[in-house]
């Protein structure tokens, strides 16, 4: 592996890590709302969250481009208030990855929150616990393995993101050229097969490790053997 290839791996981990960290609280809040609350327009919110899962990734990337362009509603604010732009930057790649991973994370977290026995929360209530204490000491610890599994899944999805990323922040070496984009680029170059093999093997290895970890955590959840 060349120094350049290691750089690609590190960049992918950075983008995936940032995407997951930023999406985690949002995904959890949405999952909790969908699992526990009834509100008007719930079906629509659910559908919008799941859009990135079914819309062509190119379209998602294009919508992000419209939103984050200097003249766009979010990009304009970033430019004016903070003087920054996420276009052609790794932060933009992380945003694309996070948006694409969000539906998967919300789905997995929602299931784990729905699996928490409401009767235990009632028991905590009769013992004098405030709603916040019930959440922190019963709901969250019981849902935690599932939440962690969802985070790992989201991380894996983030590392594999291609279509929305290349549309939104292009394919800039050292900045937005993550593993899938680097593999795609290497395929375009004569004699790039060696790099393709190595990068593809790393991609598969990372994804496999993440899936195994995620499944293992989900099983722990099913057994109800929480030690936290």
């Amino acid at each position, binding site marked *: 592996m060349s120094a350049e290839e290691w750089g690609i791996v590190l960049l992918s981990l950075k983008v995936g890590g940032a995407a997951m960290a930023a999406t985690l609280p949002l995904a959890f809040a949405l999952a909790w709302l969908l699992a526990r609350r009834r509100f008007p327009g719930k079906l629509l919110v659910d559908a919008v969250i799941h859009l990135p899962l079914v819309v062509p990734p190119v379209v998602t990337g294009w919508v992000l481009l419209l939103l984050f362009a200097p003249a766009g509603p979010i990009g304009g604010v970033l430019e004016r208030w903070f003087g920054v732009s996420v276009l052609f930057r790794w932060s933009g790649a992380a945003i694309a990855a996070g948006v694409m991973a969000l539906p998967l994370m919300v789905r997995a977290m929602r299931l784990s929150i729905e699996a928490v026995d409401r009767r235990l929360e009632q028991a905590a209530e*009769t013992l*004098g616990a405030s709603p916040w204490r019930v959440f922190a000491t019963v709901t969250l610890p019981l849902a935690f393995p599932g939440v962690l599994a969802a985070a790992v899944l989201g991380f894996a999805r983030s590392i594999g993101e291609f279509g929305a990323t290349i549309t939104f922040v292009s394919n800039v070496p050292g900045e937005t050229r993550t593993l899938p984009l680097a593999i795609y680029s290497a395929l375009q170059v004569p004699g790039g097969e060696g790099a393709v093999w190595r990068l593809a093997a790393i991609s598969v290895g990372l994804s496999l490790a993440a899936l195994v970890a995620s499944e293992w955590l989900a099983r722990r959840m099913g057994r109800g*053997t929480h030690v936290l």
Partner: protein
Amino acid sequence: MSFEIDIARRIGERDITLSLSGGEGATVLVGRSGAGKTSVLNMIAGLLTPDRGRIVVAGETLFDAAAGIDVAPRRRRVGYVFQEARLFSHRRVRANLLYGAPEGADLDATAAMLGIAPLLDRWPRTLSGGEARRVAIGRALLSDPRFLLLDEPLSSLDRPRREDVMRAIERVRDEAGLPILMVTHDPEEAARIGTRIVEMR
């Protein structure tokens, strides 16, 4: 310490009504299954809202439909022992017992009274049915309740375990001096534990 309960609620096609008052000792609520005994306990604990009526414990009104009073479950100070124990599976027995306990609660005395002192470091999933029931009773007692609600505390236990739990309840009744409202479908249990028996139809 006394309680006064006069509540009604319609659940599906059934009208659940109960009117009773009691004081020291154990009041046992009997009735065939499906009479709404558990619903009554849930209404007293605040987990289910009656359609009408009132619930007064030790002079404090916990619920009064006419006056619009409905105290939150966490402020009612009922020690509710559910039929299915409902221990927190992610906390050891000690942490379960102390969950609702105020500062300075006497864990050791309660554990000794219920015979669960050797279980403190165990996980709930390793407990037998009878042990789990007694831990649940201990957890309710330690939360500093004004009275105790017991929902079929002896059901689905074999003979020796029933005897353990029965003795524990008798000690709570005689030593802790808390009013108890217990639900059962078993006349023999009712006769042994009840200071007074109320039948629900």
